[in-house]
């Protein structure tokens, strides 16, 4: 398990006839056997098209799709052996739960007794054994989701594709199904690609995340890479909240680059070095900034609280640096520290790992 490339996309592109631009502009991705890849991006970024290209529901304009080294680019959908769970679930309303799950097995001419056994196993896997005879219209959203999973998995496909698997569920059910999908994926060990616009979903469920924007992949990496070391401003802004402060590089300081930022002075930031004198963008996550009541005449970064919004577990501050510097979002946990009202003078601090250089796309 792991480390052997299972699904490989190379130079995959799709332009819809009559559309202004390409929906997908050359995608290279590798998913290792048994791993989960999340394709994360805003709506219209081409992530669903990418999934449909892999499933074979959409023919690519260019590029290749390989599974286990076998070129599947020109193989029609029904011979691709991909399990697809659609955003709308797409369950057959005229068939009951068991017959929905049996559909793929019947297409593979599996014997009746074996169909029965495997449908039973698949329904047990998604914990719906007791609902085999129900109609689709009689199921809740979460149950429909489980049927869709069972139907896709029962044929033991080479790859499982999930299109926005949790978007149609309410918040409580979403976290349950998130755990369920994780458990089922671990139990079956199936290579999985899922598409989502929800960064929390992508970070917590996937082994690796590909962030997409405007038909391109902005960055691929582990959830930690994506969140803590975003390669581009888009990734930093889309995955979690981020303060992006633009300044000028003032050379190296050991491992870090010194960046002169308005209202903050020279700040050492980790990340790919930027030449002295060149513009540089520094990312600071709101929760990594600490606030303290400003002592008069003390050094360091200072600012004025513009607003403070209480949100239960945290307080979201907006703080203007200096007198007319940039405004930063700051998020502090409630309870453990004093809160600051609007107009309060505060001193800002952070651990040296917090500021990150984020390269602008060239």
């Amino acid at each position, binding site marked *: 398990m792991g480390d052997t490339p299972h699904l490989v996309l190379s130079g995959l592109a799709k332009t819809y006839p009559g559309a202004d631009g390409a929906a997908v502009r050359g995608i290279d991705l590798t998913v290792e056997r048994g791993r989960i890849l999340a394709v994360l991006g805003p709506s219209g970024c081409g992530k669903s098209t990418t999934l449909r290209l892999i499933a074979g529901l959409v023919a690519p304009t260019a590029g290749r799709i390989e599974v286990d080294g076998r070129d599947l680019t020109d193989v029609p959908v*029904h011979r*691709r052996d*991909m399990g697809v769970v659609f955003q709308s679930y797409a369950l057959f309303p*005229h068939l009951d739960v068991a017959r929905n799950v049996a*559909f793929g097995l019947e*297409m593979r001419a599996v014997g009746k007794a074996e169909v029965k056994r495997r449908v039973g196993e698949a329904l047990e896997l998604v914990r719906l054994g007791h609902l085999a005879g129900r*109609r*689709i219209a009689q199921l809740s959203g979460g149950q429909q989701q489980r049927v869709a999973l069972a*139907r896709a998995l029962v044929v033991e496909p080479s790859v499982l594709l999930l299109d926005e698997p949790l978007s149609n569920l309410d918040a409580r059910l979403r976290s349950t199904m998130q755990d369920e999908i994780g458990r089922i994926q671990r139990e079956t060990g199936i290579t999985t690609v899922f598409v989502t616009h929800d960064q929390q979903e992508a970070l917590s469920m996937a082994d690796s995340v590909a962030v997409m924007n405007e038909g391109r992949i902005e960055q691929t990496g582990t959830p930690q890479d994506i969140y803590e070391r975003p390669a581009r401003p888009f990734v930093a802004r889309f995955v979690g909240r981020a303060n992006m402060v633009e300044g000028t590089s003032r050379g190296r300081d050991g491992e870090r680059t010194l960046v002169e930022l308005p209202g903050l002075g020279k700040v050492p930031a980790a990340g790919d070095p930027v030449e002295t004198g060149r513009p540089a963008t520094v990312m600071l996550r709101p929760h990594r900034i600490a606030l303290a009541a400003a002592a008069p005449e003390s050094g360091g970064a200072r600012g004025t609280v513009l607003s403070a919004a209480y949100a239960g577990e945290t307080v979201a501050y907006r703080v203007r640096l200096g007198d007319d510097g940039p405004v930063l979002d700051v998020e502090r946990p409630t309870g453990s520290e004093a809160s600051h009202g609007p107009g309060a003078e505060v001193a800002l601090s952070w651990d040296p790992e917090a500021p990150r250089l984020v390269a602008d796309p060239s």
Partner: protein
Amino acid sequence: MTAEAVAAPAVRPVRPRGPGRHALALLAPGIVALLLTYAMPLVWVLRMSLNESGEGGLIRQTVSFATFAEVLSSAHWWNVIGQTVELGVLVTVCTLVVSYPLALFLARTTSRWRGLLVALAVTPLLISSVARTFGWMAILGNQGLVNKTLGELGIISEPLQLANNLTGVVIASTEIYMPFAILAMISGFGRLDPELEHAAASLGAPRRTVFRRVVLPLTLPGVLTAALMVFVLSLSGYVTPRLIGGGRVFVLATEIYDQATTALDWPVAAVLSVLLLALFGVVIAVYLRAQKVLEARFTGPQGARS
């Protein structure tokens, strides 16, 4: 559905002031119009069917089933009933077969011309069916477009008998009822979802299997509604059988007209009308039964949906 509608008010708490009086006032004009144009003539026809006819258009006021007995014991009238049903079945089958692919295309297309295409499919309704029937006579007649063309090309030596018989009536009726069938089908294809076809394909179904296992079952309710509509329209159709039939196609509608206006045998015309009504009743009962069976596949055997 009807059972639920009737049973539902019983369990609801009684409201102190219902909308009853206002609703009745608003319904009154419609009810009066229906009474005058529908219920009264119907009662009158039923009454007439219990009379007996004498010589020369004489009507004996009786209350007997003698005229029914007379009609139902006549081979001629059974023949007419048979031909009416035969025409209805043939027209329904032909109309469904030619309309289904069109309706399926119109229901599934994402083209921006879809609205225009649907409108085009029903534009024939803008022309009276009398005019369209005359059009078909010009096409199907012995000196018509088809026979002329085939004759001049030397493909046939004798003209094909396409008019003045059942064939012609079926061809013309099929075209005339197509817009109704297409509309009924499109509106009945609501369960069709391209994603279901994608799901079936991703599970290994080739296109033909997708059609057989998914598209066809999901479109059956729409087809059933279209079938009912065309069958009922065709049972009561008068213009096309009369004009294209050329006096050789005898169906209930044409015979009722002849009995009432030419033979002046109103009791027999009334009996035939009642038989036609009974036929509608049978057809609608069959339709409701079939619909229930079809719906049970979507909602479960008891139709239990919370």
